């Protein structure tokens, strides 16, 4: 390990201790570490954008690129200039064009991906679960696959029913004004169970991830202390 590595490891060690000092309450060292992280992150991102986005993909091609490359940079350059001009309050309307372009493009990409990458494949997956060919592919797991398909079907329909925000068309009494049809109410209860299980799994995953982060930091502290006091 070089001197530079040692110094930066020591800085990391001190910052880790400062963050962990929050265990005894909010204090000056914890706030110092947090402010340091925020400032460093902002500066790092600014430099990163200039070095890896603006310079290689805009400035250098404009200077050294071929004519077709320069031509294709006119549109992003114009959008960038409009965005900059829009920061002046008098010309704030100019920023609408690049922002609208970004929003529209992002919506098109995300919606297209959600429909063709999630909705249709997941629907097909549910249908495939009821394929008898899959049920009997492994005779010892036939009932297990059938049960899996039924649970998947109930879970999907239940969750969709839970998020159905409708109401009865034919109301029998005044109390039915805000109620959903009875079958959707029942399926919605089933969907609540599946939502609860899913959120529980996510919660356990967050616990697990946080615990692993703590273990990683403790290992780092242990190694650093070994380096510091190992030579004594």
């Amino acid at each position: 390990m070089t001197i530079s590595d040692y110094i930066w490891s020591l800085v990391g060690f001190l910052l880790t201790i400062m963050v962990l000092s929050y265990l005894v309450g909010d204090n000056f060292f914890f706030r110092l570490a947090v402010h340091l992280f925020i400032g460093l992150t902002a500066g790092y991102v600014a430099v990163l954008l200039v070095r890896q986005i603006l310079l290689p993909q805009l400035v250098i091609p404009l200077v050294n690129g071929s004519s077709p490359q320069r031509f294709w940079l006119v549109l992003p350059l114009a959008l960038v200039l409009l965005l900059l001009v829009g920061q002046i309050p008098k010309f704030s309307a100019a920023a609408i064009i690049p922002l609208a372009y970004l929003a529209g493009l992002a919506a098109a990409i995300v919606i297209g991906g959600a429909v063709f990458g999630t909705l249709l494949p997941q629907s097909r997956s549910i249908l495939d679960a009821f394929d008898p060919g899959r049920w009997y592919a492994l005779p010892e797991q036939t009932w297990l696959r059938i049960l899996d398909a039924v649970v998947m079907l109930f879970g999907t329909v239940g969750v969709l029913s839970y998020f159905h925000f409708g109401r009865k068309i034919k109301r029998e009494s005044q109390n039915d004004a805000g109620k959903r049809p009875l079958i959707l109410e029942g399926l919605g209860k089933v969907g609540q169970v599946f939502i609860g299980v899913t959120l529980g799994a996510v919660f356990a995953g967050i616990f697990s991830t946080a615990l692993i982060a703590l273990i990683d930091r403790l290992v780092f502290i242990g190694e650093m202390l070994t380096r510091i006091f190992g030579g004594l």
Partner: protein
Amino acid sequence: MPFLICPDCGAENPLTAEICQVCGASLADVIPMDMDNSEADDGENDEFTLFSAEDKDLPELLNDLKQDHEPAGGGLPEIDLAGEGESSEVDDTPEWLDVIRKRAHEELDAAGEMTQRIVAAQESLTRQNEEERADYASWIEELRKETREEAVSGTEGQEEEPLEGPAPEKAKKDWLSRVRKASGKLETHDEPNAASRNLLDWLVALEEEQTGGMPSGEAGVTQPVDLRQRAHADESTREVRVGDGAQQAVAPKRLDLSREEREQADLLATTIADESTARPVQPITFGRRRWWVEFILAFFLIGGICFVLFSGRLFLLPEPPVTSGGQAVLNSVADLPEDAELLLVFDYQPAFAGELEWVAAPVLEALPDSVKVSVISTSASGPLLADSMLERLEIIPAIDLGYLPAEAFGAYGLAAGLASTQAAEFLPKGASELFEGEFHGILILSDNAERARVWVEQLSVLTPETPLNLLVTAQAGPMLRPYVDSGQVTGMMAGISDAAGLETSRTQGPNASQRWQAYQVGLLTLIGVLILGVLLNLRGGATQGDDI
């Protein structure tokens, strides 16, 4: 004799009075007036001696006026300023009262003592009313007389001018001049053609203002005229419109409100009043922190983990199994052809570097040496994390595509580039590299299910033939599992539980086993803390403000 005129109700008060004897208004700033002098100065106010001489204030006169006419019609008397109507000097004493009175006079013991007392009281009241009516009648008569005179003079000077023009205006001005003098600098102007009825209307308005009965809020009329406030607020001459307000007061509009509307109006008024209510600034408190509880829990958690990590002993905890997802990832990597190109997508934050390095290590270490690795980052710290991980694993990337600020655009651009068969030489270097890439496999390292899903959605649609594997944290795993089951993703390793089996089976070293056991100890401790918290809450109940 000098006296004080109340600026609010116009009542005369003795010089020694500090507040009005009628309405209770303060007379501190009122200038004493000598009626004789003022009248001598003006020389035109003889008709208004009726009020001061009889010590008759306006509200009382108005009340008497109302009482006298209530049996007849219940409204204010119609004043025939043209002099064509009859006066109201009609004795409307009931007939039965006259009979009783006559018998009482003739026969002293005819009605008994009590009846005599009642009759005497009624007679006294009747006489008093008659006197007051006489006062009022004389005042009306004087007004009428003055109106005739003015009408005659007006006809002589200007025949086209209506009769009820200047005469009552003059009288009103004279009377109001005393109020103006008493209250200071205020001077009122009435409209030139205002009817003399406005004077009575103004009196009604003044009386209701005095008694607080002006239904301005309900009827939506103008606010009561506060003479003193307006005089103090504006030193210059201002116009006080009393006619409109008085007319509204005589015939107030009724605002019909349902109970629900009234409740809503009350709620709105309460809310508005509550908004402007001054409240003391209370510092934000997060409840009483039981720091000793936190300290004990942290001690057990950190102490237990450190003991397992650094003691060098292995405990009899179950070894992690090799999951099907992890095995699928390994098989996908092992099946890569010779000189294949593999794309690594770094999409996680530094806080999760430890977990993802642990997850990715067995996979990346299993890569054949002939595989060319390309790197792209969609998180700001991705380039640094990529350098750190690849340097530790001694992997040298062939191509570094750099940082893409928006993962949706980057994923779409990459997928479109992989799907396109045409060269994109016209694009800048970074974008063209993105479009010209041809990868035999893609590994996505992510800590966020949403961002990883964007990659899966774009790549699985545009390049379904390219094997796609996920190396994610435990918190992102559950939300990405359906994509594995549907076949859109070849394999997935989520968290340490999936990676530990491969790690221990591959390295067989004490380091991996001790980390896995530390993880299990920490997990058991956290489960114990959760159960303990539930039991404590069940026993003592959750109390607001306690922050364990």
